[in-house]
């Protein structure tokens, strides 16, 4: 990217001052990670979409409680989102079907589930930071199942360009994942 991105923490501090533009920027960065987290926890798409609205209402209300000394902005948004989604689930628990008594559960433990949710959140947030050219090849390679040569054909660019963009996209994601988010 040609210009350094404003940190999430700086945006949250501006949201605390009721700056609509900062709120919209934060929404652009986190709407899809929040929806992904809500879908994972709630399951039902309609309720998950409702909870996205609730999460960002909570972000707007609570931004003044953000303390940069206690951690990066991304982790704060994650905590707000997780709590709002749990509140949504408490208000209207998802219907459950009892396991047969003899069945052995293969579901992840709460700790495993929490770690998986956090990692998914971080990856989805990091994807939002990629330039469009790198985002396209990463999406096509990892989420559409296209080979490198199929991507080259699809995007009408040389195979070497696809490989370079995929590699640089991975490196940029690694930088973000190791950084603030």
């Amino acid at each position, binding site marked *: 990217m040609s210009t350094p991105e404003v940190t999430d923490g700086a945006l949250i501090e501006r949201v605390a001052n009721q700056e609509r533009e900062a709120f919209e920027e934060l929404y652009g960065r986190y709407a899809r990670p929040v929806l992904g987290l809500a879908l994972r926890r709630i399951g039902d798409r309609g309720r998950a979409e409702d909870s996205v609205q609730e999460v*960002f*209402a909570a972000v*707007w209300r609570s931004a003044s409680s953000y303390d940069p000394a206690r951690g990066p902005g991304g982790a704060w948004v994650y905590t707000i989102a997780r709590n709002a989604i749990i509140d949504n689930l408490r208000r209207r628990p998802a219907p459950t079907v009892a396991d047969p008594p003899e069945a052995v559960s293969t579901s992840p433990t709460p700790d495993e589930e929490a770690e998986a949710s956090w990692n998914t959140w971080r990856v989805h947030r990091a994807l939002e930071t990629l330039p469009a050219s790198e985002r396209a090849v990463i999406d096509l390679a990892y989420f559409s*199942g296209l080979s*490198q040569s199929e991507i080259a054909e699809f995007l009408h660019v040389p195979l070497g360009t696809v490989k370079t963009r*995929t590699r640089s996209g991975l490196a940029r994601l690694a930088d973000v994942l*190791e950084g603030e988010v």
Partner: protein
Amino acid sequence: MSTVPPFDEIVDGADPERVRLRTTHDLLLSAGPPPELPPSLEAAPAQQSQVIAILPRRRYTAIAAVALAACALFGVGYAIGGRDVPNEPVRTIAMTGDSGATASIALLAADAAGNWPMSLEVSGLPPLPKGKTYSLWLTRGGKLAESCGTFAVAAGTTKVPLNAPYRLKRFDGWVIVRTGTKVPLLSTA
């Protein structure tokens, strides 16, 4: 088509960053794709939405009365001058598939920003497991070109609002696929 991108083809064996790139590669695979935002969530919500929840109950009654009056006025206006209905489709597109499923797109007039709102009505597609969706794509030269959003279906007929923020003349068809695949289930050709 491969389902897992070959890491060794992407990152050279002698690449000094190979270990951390491998970690990122694995995280991407385990995270899966981020969900598509529906049109209703594409813009940040207005902060005023938080105020509504704390209005006293009697205020709701007043709001309901105002809304009812507005509906009545709209009805009168519609009856008098209903020829210029803004939500009238400018084009209807039919789609068919091998399985007997059908769909139609009622394309509404584009707004000033170039959004083409539409209503997709689809029948005969099987409901998918939770979290799985279908996607509507514009095609060019027989290939998926731009996504117009994702949706889920229920048994029977499903009607869903979608949007195509593109210059439609650049494309030559529409298809519906399962999200993450390229196999057309319904198409215009």
